[in-house]
């Protein structure tokens, strides 16, 4: 297993399956004092409440202490300290670094300037590998397998980093993809080429209702305002898809709806009480997967 978790592409199929199997142990036994006496740094150079709380809780459930910051306002970074200096300083204090940074490649760079394991909790629009691993864990949990699953990805497939990483990670498991997106937000050609080279089938549509009944996983995403330079364009697309309970007639029994959250309007609240809604459980799974990631990178599992 690599020293750090920076990009999902660094992890082999075996590495991924190992993280998922340890995560299952963590879910079965939610408090394990494996990391008694260890210190985990959670460095959030840009705010992300959900991811930070998930990582901090994961570390604490393993018995570790947590230090860090949740934004840079009152830190030496606001005085102009370089990323390298911050990482070098913190690496003297702790056993592992979890970091989110607005610059793409920041986590990779951090892993090169210190000897500690680094977990990338998001580097701008690039990678967010713990999200990908928790998505895989959730697919495995709901379908009983990762192989030969049909995944319908919905929403902003052009800028959405979670769908790109999930696509790459799932390529190990012989999947079928459906891409549901408006024309302007379609899956980029480089990812379609990636699938073609591996003989992985996919179909594209701009209609949400078209493939609701022939998928195992409906992976909904939010159209992210921050990815649009033109506010008029965002207005045009922000409500392009809205999933409602009435649309779910005739879907496969095993079908589960996932969403990296937060949602805005893509999933109506009346979907929450259907047997297909799984996004809150998916978020909970994030904690077990992050426990697994920290324990594995520190060599305890």
């Amino acid at each position: 297993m690599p020293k750090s978790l920076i990009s999902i592409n660094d992890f082999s199929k075996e590495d991924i399956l190992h993280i998922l199997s340890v995560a299952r142990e963590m879910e079965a036994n939610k408090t394990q004092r494996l990391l008694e006496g260890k210190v985990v740094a959670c460095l959030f150079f840009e705010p992300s409440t959900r991811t930070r709380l998930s990582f901090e809780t994961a570390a604490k459930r393993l018995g570790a202490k947590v230090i860090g910051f949740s934004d840079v306002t009152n830190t030496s970074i606001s005085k102009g300290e370089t990323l390298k200096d911050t990482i070098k300083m913190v690496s003297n204090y702790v056993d592992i670094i979890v970091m989110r940074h607005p610059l793409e490649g920041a986590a990779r760079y951090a892993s090169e300037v210190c000897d500690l394991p680094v977990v990338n909790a998001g580097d701008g629009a690039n990678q967010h590998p713990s999200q990908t691993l928790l998505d895989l864990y959730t697919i495995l949990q709901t379908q009983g397998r990762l192989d030969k699953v049909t995944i319908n990805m919905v929403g902003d497939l052009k800028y959405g980093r979670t769908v790109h990483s999930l696509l790459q990670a799932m390529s190990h498991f012989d999947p079928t993809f459906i891409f549901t997106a408006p024309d302007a937000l379609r899956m980029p050609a480089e990812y379609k080429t990636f699938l073609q080279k591996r003989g992985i089938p996919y179909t594209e549509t701009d209609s949400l209702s078209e493939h609701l009944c022939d998928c195992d996983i409906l992976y909904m995403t939010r159209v992210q305002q921050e990815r649009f330079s033109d506010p008029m364009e965002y207005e045009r697309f922000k409500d392009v898809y809205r999933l409602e309970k009435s649309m779910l007639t005739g879907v496969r029994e095993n079908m589960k709806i996932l969403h990296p959250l937060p949602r805005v309007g893509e999933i109506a609240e009346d979907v929450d009480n259907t047997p297909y809604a799984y996004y809150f459980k998916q978020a909970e799974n994030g904690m077990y997967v992050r426990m697994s990631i920290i324990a594995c990178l520190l060599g305890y599992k």
Partner: protein
Amino acid sequence: MSERNTQLKVSAIKDGTVLDHIPAGRLFQVVDILDLSHCSNPVTIGVNLESKSQGRKGIIKIADRFFEDEELSRIALAAPEATVNIIKDYQVVSKKKIELPAEVVGIAKCSNPMCVTNNQDVPTRFTTVVEGEKVKLLCHYCEKTTEEFVPLRH
């Protein structure tokens, strides 16, 4: 001897390296890649010279300097069709082929403005990806592909 001088339109060098058949528009990129603006040897640069095969070409002659293969391989990013002639006592003693390096460190600029290399003091690092005639650069940090080579300024 004198006939060759006339053809090349720039003065011959006794010993050194001649980089020929550089596409005219890429000449100054090659100058940047080899950091020739900080070179104290005599350097002759010719640009927009007539070429039978290329239309307009560039040529660079560096007296008394012989490059490592690794240095020369960097030229492949800007001018893969360039030829390298090693001159000893006014004669071409060897020609070298430019090989595209698998990895490019500290030469090219990443085209992604949000890449850490464009915002912190981090040397750039790419793997080269050949797609047909084109050479693309895959950034080691932000994982984005740079389509057009732009040299880092020294």
